[in-house]
């Protein structure tokens, strides 16, 4: 089983995030950079699948030079190899460009499964796995909280409002997993050392057969016109409970016509 896990380097989810004033792209320097939390579930799921049978897990990421750290970090959970697509022309790429780049990089490599986290904690669009599935013409097996493989049949539990759908497809397929699908492992010392030596391909746009005119900020399918930080909320009324706290909330809810 050859599995590729796509990961994204994002600002730490516990930190304040900002846009850059000059070009309205994410200010990557404003916060610590980490592997997108939800992608850790994807790596864990991939490792469990190959551990239960056999195979290799490759980590794929598109991002600036620093994103190589996140590829190594993900490998150190126990994966075998990394692919990092880095090119100055990629700066400001939107989801359509990202999905195009990932699909190009994945094409022809013979992966049986391509696994994503269901969303990134910065952009939170949740569209890239579906887009990559569409571009590669592979079954879209997304929002899974359970992944099972039996022979060449893949079965997932797709999380829905009412519970879940049990969905089946053949392999290869594109999977995304939701938070809490599993319990991601911490990298062991042995795997951290192994990750330093794991094979890593660093590819430019030209290496994957794309030209700069199909990606990046200037060629994005959508553009940010302007942005502003939300003005701080006007200070509300805060009282200390002296046995009358509930009564005061009740009065407030009445004046606001909630009750």
């Amino acid at each position: 089983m050859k599995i590729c896990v796509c990961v994204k380097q994002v600002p730490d989810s516990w930190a304040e995030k900002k846009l850059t004033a000059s070009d309205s792209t994410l200010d990557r320097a404003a916060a610590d950079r980490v592997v997108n939390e939800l992608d850790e579930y994807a790596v864990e799921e991939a490792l469990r699948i190959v551990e239960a049978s056999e195979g290799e897990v490759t980590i794929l990421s598109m991002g600036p030079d620093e994103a190589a750290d996140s590829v190594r970090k993900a490998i150190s959970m126990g994966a075998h190899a990394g692919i990092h697509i880095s090119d100055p022309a990629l700066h400001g790429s939107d989801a359509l460009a990202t999905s195009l780049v990932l699909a190009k990089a994945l094409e022809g490599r013979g992966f049986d499964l391509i696994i994503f986290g269901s969303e990134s904690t910065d952009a939170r669009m949740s569209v890239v796995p579906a887009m990559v599935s569409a571009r590669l013409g592979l079954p879209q097996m997304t929002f899974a909280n359970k992944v099972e493989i039996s022979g060449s049949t893949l079965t997932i539990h797709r999380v829905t409002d009412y519970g879940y759908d049990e969905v089946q497809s053949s392999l290869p397929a594109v999977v995304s997993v939701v938070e809490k699908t599993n319990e991601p492992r911490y990298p062991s010392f042995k795997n951290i050392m192994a990750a330093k030596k794991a094979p890593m391909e660093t590819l430019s746009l030209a290496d994957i057969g794309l030209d700069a005119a199909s990606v990046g900020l200037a060629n994005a399918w959508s553009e940010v016109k302007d942005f502003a930080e939300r003005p701080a909320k006007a200070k509300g009324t805060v009282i200390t409970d002296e046995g009358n706290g509930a009564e005061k909330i009740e009065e407030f809810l009445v004046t606001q016509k909630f009750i």
Partner: protein
Amino acid sequence: MAEVLVLIEHSEGTVKKVALELLAMAAGIGEPSAVFVGPGADAALATLGDHGAKTVYVADGQAFLDHVVVPTVDVLVKLVSEKSPAAVLIPSSADGKEVAGRLAVAIDSGVITDAVAVSADVIATQNVFGGATIVHSKVSKGTPVITVRTNSIAPVQTGGSATRVDVAAEVSAAASATKVVNRVSVQKSGRPDLSEAAIVVSGGRGVGGDEGFTNVIEPLADSLGAAVGASRAATDAGWYPHQFQVGQTGKTVSPQLYVASGISGAIQHRAGMQTSKTVVVVNKDADAPIFDLADFGVVGDLHSVVPDLTARVNARK
């Protein structure tokens, strides 16, 4: 006036509130046309017409039950090429975002997710980074595909009626690549859906345990007809199911009223609720950052304040 396609979210013909909100939003851009896929169109037609839809495109068939996301995309691709709409509006649900993503790829158009407003010239307003930053953006290539959050606009009853137009649904290879073999419903609480609810009552670490949710948080929610939410601290501790987590990695809610009990208000949580219209806070710690968002806050023990409040709300009925 150009048509604006609105994908209707429904449950076997019972139209979700967000669908009516999107029709109201579409009316600000062009002529709203509803796109109804799956069973139940007959039951929905009058409601959709009464909320501004001039046309209801209906595609029904086994495909919409057997397969996920792709059959809906196939219908929209067909309608976009035939009608050249000014925009396609889709609810910002998990399915909706995936429909939008695939549609954007198929018609080579830009996609914007989680809009809270869309202007007449199709500029979308988004609250990003958990509402800390307000962004205006525009699709620059193709037909704008925009997903819109629930509770962004009030539905408008127009008293109109819609014309039904049936659309033939063909099952593409991409659609049939996945097959739904079983639909499993987990038990419903009878409370409103968290992401759609007008009022959300949430509990955090201060609730102290699962019995705190059962005995304190849920009764207040039920007195107000509210949905129950929980902070990540509470769901990580196993006090409340994970699907009710409000925050950066959970649900984003924007209700009329958000009641936060025993929640300190770390960025992780604020990111999921800070666009709520009105926020009421109960917390023991006067320095908790959640008080910065409070329209009304009580520094006190939620275990006495919240049950007292529940009794008072119930007594008014």
